[in-house]
């Protein structure tokens, strides 16, 4: 018995460890992107995002400011702080620790912080960890301090500058609004159309019903690619052209098979007694639909709405074809794929921030409404096939 129990717990360990490995593997790419989006391009090129929480070592060249020298014990003395008074002050944040310094570029880390460097002719230089320095000389500095090289540990730093730049100067802000403008009507409009049709297919008897259901199932898998050329032409002929109206209509049409299919599967499962009872009481189909079936189908409606929302929000193909190609109407996926990847291909911080702006809303929707999404997936794929 003991042996079996031992095996059991070993197996549990193995299961736990494999799931941890899998979750980490699935999560790492996204985490990398998130971390990178808060780092400057400078930092990204100096160290991997996995080192972002650790200080980065960087070498600097500086010249000690020559003004404000004082005389102490017959020597000329310059004091100050390299972190705030030096030429690199803009790059150095509080918390930077100077590890070593030197007086020539050949050995910038010749002296440890706090040691006394010999400047020749009786001059000395001390640079401390906190950046404060003291330079002495037998003769006046005459307004020009000695050159100094130093190696500093830059504390980990995160910035929102990528997001600012992406949203306000790269046009992602406008693209975000465009995506929202495309997504919301394209999510709402198909729902009612589909719900009425689903009700007819689920609860009304008429010849050709089976055929229609089969047609819906068939249309579920029609590749969108087929629709692009003929529909764009049709839109151009009736005067819609490439416009927001065009893309709303297109997404409505493309989303309908799934909507009808999901809703019908759900409505068929509603209790027969309620609907027949209402019919006996003299309710019309329209009343039954509006007052009984629609409210009861809320979970299915929510599932579909989430699907459609994610699908339209994340879509690139339909947006590329049915929206005008000018800058003012680009949605985020098009903006990233066509503009940013080309013009800012090497600008990793900007790319990461742009990607995160575009996936933030779907992630939010996903995590807050996961229950409905899972339910919809199960209803759509397992029951019907």
């Amino acid at each position: 018995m003991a042996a079996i129990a031992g095996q059991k717990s070993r197996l549990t360990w193995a299961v736990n460890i494999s799931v941890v490995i899998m979750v980490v593997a699935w999560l790492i790419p996204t985490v990398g992107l998130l971390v990178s989006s808060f780092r400057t391009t400078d930092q990204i090129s100096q160290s991997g995002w996995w080192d972002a929480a650790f200080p980065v070592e960087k070498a600097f060249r500086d010249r000690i400011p020559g003004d404000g020298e004082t005389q102490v014990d017959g020597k000329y003395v310059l004091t100050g702080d390299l972190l705030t008074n030096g030429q690199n002050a803009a790059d150095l944040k509080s918390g930077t620790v100077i590890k070593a310094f030197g007086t020539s570029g050949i050995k910038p880390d010749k002296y440890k912080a706090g040691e006394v460097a010999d400047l020749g002719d009786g001059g000395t230089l001390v640079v401390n960890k906190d950046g404060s320095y003291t330079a002495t000389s037998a003769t006046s500095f005459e307004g020009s301090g000695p050159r100094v090289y130093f190696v500093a540990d830059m504390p980990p730093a995160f910035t929102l500058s990528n997001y600012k730049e992406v949203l306000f100067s790269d046009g992602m802000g406008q693209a975000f609004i465009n995506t929202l403008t495309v997504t919301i009507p394209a999510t709402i409009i198909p729902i009612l159309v589909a719900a009425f049709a689903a009700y007819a297919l689920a609860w009304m008897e008429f010849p050709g019903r089976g055929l229609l259901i089969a047609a819906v199932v068939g249309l579920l898998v029609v590749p969108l690619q087929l629709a692009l050329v003929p529909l764009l032409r049709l839109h151009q002929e009736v005067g819609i052209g490439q416009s927001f109206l065009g893309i709303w209509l297109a997404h409505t049409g493309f989303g309908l098979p799934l909507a009808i299919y999901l809703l019908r599967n759900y409505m068929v499962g509603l209790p027969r007694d309620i609907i027949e009872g209402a019919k006996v009481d003299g309710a019309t189909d329209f009343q039954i639909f509006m007052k009984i079936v629609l409210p009861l189908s809320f979970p299915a409606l929510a599932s579909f709405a989430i699907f459609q929302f994610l699908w339209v929000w994340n879509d690139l193909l339909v947006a590329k074809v049915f929206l005008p190609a000018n800058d003012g109407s680009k949605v985020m996926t098009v903006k990233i794929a066509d503009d940013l990847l080309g013009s800012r291909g090497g600008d990793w911080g900007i790319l990461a921030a742009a990607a995160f702006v575009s996936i933030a809303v779907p992630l939010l929707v996903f995590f807050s409404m996961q229950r409905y999404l899972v339910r919809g997936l199960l209803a759509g794929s397992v029951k019907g096939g």
Partner: protein
Amino acid sequence: MSPILQGLITIVLGVGGCVAYFYASNLVLDKVIFPPKGANPGRNINRANMVRPWLFLLPAILALGIYLAYPVVGSFWRSLFNRDGSQFIGLGNYEKLAGDGTFRQAVFNNFLWVLFVPALATFFGLMAAQLTDRLKWGNLAKSLIFMPMAISFVGASLIWKFVYANNPTIGLINAVRDYFHLIPVDPLQIPFWNNFFLMVILIWIQTGFAMVILSGALRGIPEETVEAAVLDGANSFQLFFKIKVPQIMPTIVVVWTTITILVLKVFDIVYATTGGNFGTQILPSYMMQYMFRDDGRATAVAFVIMIIVLPVMIWNIIQARKELR
């Protein structure tokens, strides 16, 4: 008019129009065309009830007809014409495709995608579903593996571009290579294998989908079958592969075919990573190359995709009809 305002108006018109249409058409049917009074009230009620389903279905049928059914025919028809649609060239576009090396490459690559992506995504999904099933933190783990489903293909491509980056301080793969003092490589430019690096992106996205559905199916397995097997001394592996997997086989097939169909449609990943260069072209991205430039050829490619999807479509319809009976 600003697009936002236009959007709001469209929502109001769309939803309001829908309700108004259904309400008014039912009213007209019951009060004007077939009123339940006059000479034959009974016959009128029956007739009204025969027409009503079609009132409910009409908007959906119109939209489906225009946006999905018509394009199948329209695309095929357009593919028989030349670049600008002025001249009928029969199967000329298809002949051109057959003679194009890039097209053949795209077909071959697409074949690889169809072979590997559904298989691996289903496999990982099944593993994740089974392993997380009894875990205390199983739901959290599932949530995290499922998460990529919410990310756009473009976003996912960008995420993985970071992983694949040539620079060892950006790309994880090259960071590992750097650690072992190997020279950095660009995974997306290694001939043949770069296809697999792109497939990883879609597998990463679709595993969550497979996991959710298969985990639902695993939960639906009758307890008795599992208990009987345990009593007969089956170990965990036998239990899984000989008892559970056969019982959820139909669901596995559904997941497999759903992902297969998806693979044939996704152009975003190739478009946003390599743009079809370095021998990574697949059919959907190949089609986009000709979209707007040579509609004849673009529709011909689309129709080729349709023909590949057709068997799955027919199989789906047969299954659905079986269930209806």
